[in-house]
């Protein structure tokens, strides 16, 4: 997928069905083969299922990293070990400034003056997340993501029991809110979104102790359990969009191998942003290998759940070494 197309989808654009001319000859051959070779494919699928099965490898790694990063913040303050001082909005790692890109943006817009430390910290974090995948910040670092994952399993349980039904919002909402919060910061001279940021509130609550602001976090968890699956991360949080844009050129991505895929759709069921996985629908992949778009949080749930090993993590340009 081109960066331009990935950005369009990031901003809420519908995923288009590819035209006949978009397909590579290789992709056409695989699609054709899949249509012809029913019995053999089924046997092959069985074999793949035996080999892969459903694991929690990436989820466990990710949870470990997420907890470790947040714990490092907490312990740096509590035990005064000073490895990672500050909170997720801004911090120092061994003395180096790290500044959250969205928070930095809010401050720059509100304050209208740019400080050297702010630029250094922002540039460092920018480079870091370009290299690490952009929205991987969401699933590998943001503490709200972990709570939301638990709320999500409760939501799915309740949906399954027909106690609640899910409601979707328009994916373009996040981009509109991003813009409006940027304008608000500029006009009011105050970092309005920072007041509402679940990431900031939770990170500070973990490090400096709980406060009433946690009620706002609770409110969103309730919305996500009873009304709309993963609503904050999917449709509202501007931080996700900021990191999504940063991740557009990132080499770290989830890759898809058409040949290994039996189009069973398990990946799209577990995905936070299933629109990025539309290429796995039968007949949609335009090339034999595809890279999943920038809205992907690199959480790895699809890699874990894929019963035939068609999805995997990859680092662009490094495949011969990995």
């Amino acid at each position, binding site marked *: 997928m081109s960066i331009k197309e990935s950005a369009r989808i990031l901003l809420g654009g519908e995923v288009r069905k590819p035209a006949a001319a978009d397909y590579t000859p290789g992709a056409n051959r695989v699609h054709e083969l899949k249509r012809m070779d029913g019995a053999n494919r089924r046997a092959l699928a069985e074999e793949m299922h035996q080999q892969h099965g459903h694991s929690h490898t990436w989820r466990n790694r990710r949870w470990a990293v997420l907890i470790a990063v947040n714990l490092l913040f907490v312990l740096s*303050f509590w035990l005064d070990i000073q490895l990672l001082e500050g909170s997720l909005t*801004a911090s120092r790692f061994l003395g180096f400034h790290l500044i959250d890109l969205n928070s930095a943006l809010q401050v720059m817009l*509100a304050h209208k003056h740019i400080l050297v*430390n702010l630029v250094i910290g922002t540039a460092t974090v920018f480079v870091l997340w370009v290299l690490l995948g952009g929205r991987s910040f969401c699933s590998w670092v943001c503490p709200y993501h972990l709570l939301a994952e638990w709320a999500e399993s409760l939501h799915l349980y309740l949906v399954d029991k027909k106690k609640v039904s899910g409601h979707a919002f328009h994916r373009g909402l996040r981009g509109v*809110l991003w813009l409006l919060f940027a304008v*608000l910061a500029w006009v009011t001279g105050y970092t309005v979104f920072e007041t509402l940021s679940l990431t900031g509130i939770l990170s500070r609550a973990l490090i400096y102790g709980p406060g009433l602001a946690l009620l706002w976090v609770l409110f969103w968890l309730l919305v996500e359990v009873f009304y709309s699956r993963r609503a904050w991360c999917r449709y509202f949080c501007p931080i996700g969009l900021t990191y999504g844009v940063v991740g557009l050129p990132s080499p770290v991505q989830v890759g898809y191998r058409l040949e290994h895929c039996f189009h069973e759709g398990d990946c799209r069921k577990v995905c936070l942003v299933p629109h990025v996985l539309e290429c796995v629908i039968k007949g949609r992949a335009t090339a034999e290998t595809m890279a999943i778009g920038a809205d992907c949080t690199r959480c790895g749930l699809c890699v874990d759940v894929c019963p035939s090993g068609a999805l995997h993590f990859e680092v662009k340009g490094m495949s011969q070494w990995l």
Partner: protein
Amino acid sequence: MAPIPPPKVTPHKAAQARRHFLRSLIGGGALLAAGGAAWLPLAQAGTVRLRPPGALEEDDFLSSCIKCGQCVQVCPVSALKLADLDDGYGVGTPFIEARAQACDFSCDAVQCILACPTGALTYTKPAHLATRAAMRMASAPILLAKEKDPEPSLNLKERIGVARLARPDLCLARQGKGWKGAARGSGYDGHLRFMDVDRWRPIPLNDHPFDVPVCDLCVRTCPIKGAISLELLPDGNKTPVVHEACVGCGVCEMACPTEPAAIVIDPRRGWEA
């Protein structure tokens, strides 16, 4: 024979899309409203709080504070707290509750300023972010603890407030009374540095009992040279008098043994001769 293609958008789908759009509009509007609600108390000035030393003027401070709490982490006496939702002056911004724990400059170098990544706290205000003239100190404040050092002054050019004898009728000195024992009631756990006890480590204020014939706790705990003194009144009693050197750190308010404190800090108020 080809099947008849279904209509592109069914009435049901159209209704669904309409609901979808409306829901998004309402959801987005609600979040913006929540943002507005959080900002409103600030727009209306709200509660005036003591900000950390080196803070820009309030509007500039609120726009530049990134709410990371690094200033909180370096304070040796934990004087800085982060504001909560109901405080109405910026969730996550630092402030000082002087009565509970004042800034006693036991860090010597005003570490919170050093820690601030965005310049919301700065040693030197840039020209375009000037403070009110009354906030500027006439000369660099001299830290009594460093008085004998080659560089005795604090790297601080503006005050954060100014002390005021708000309840003269409560002041023990004005009644000719002394003070014996711990400055504050039991259970009070504020810390202060006492040079004669430990140069580097602040101790609980209540671990340092006083025994003075005329109460002068505000004067004797003040960390800044020439900021406050006891002066004779016509009736023969004494009263604390605040001088221009006061930076507004709040130690006098913290140490004042009356309940409520007779002397308080007026946050973010300049010096008026």
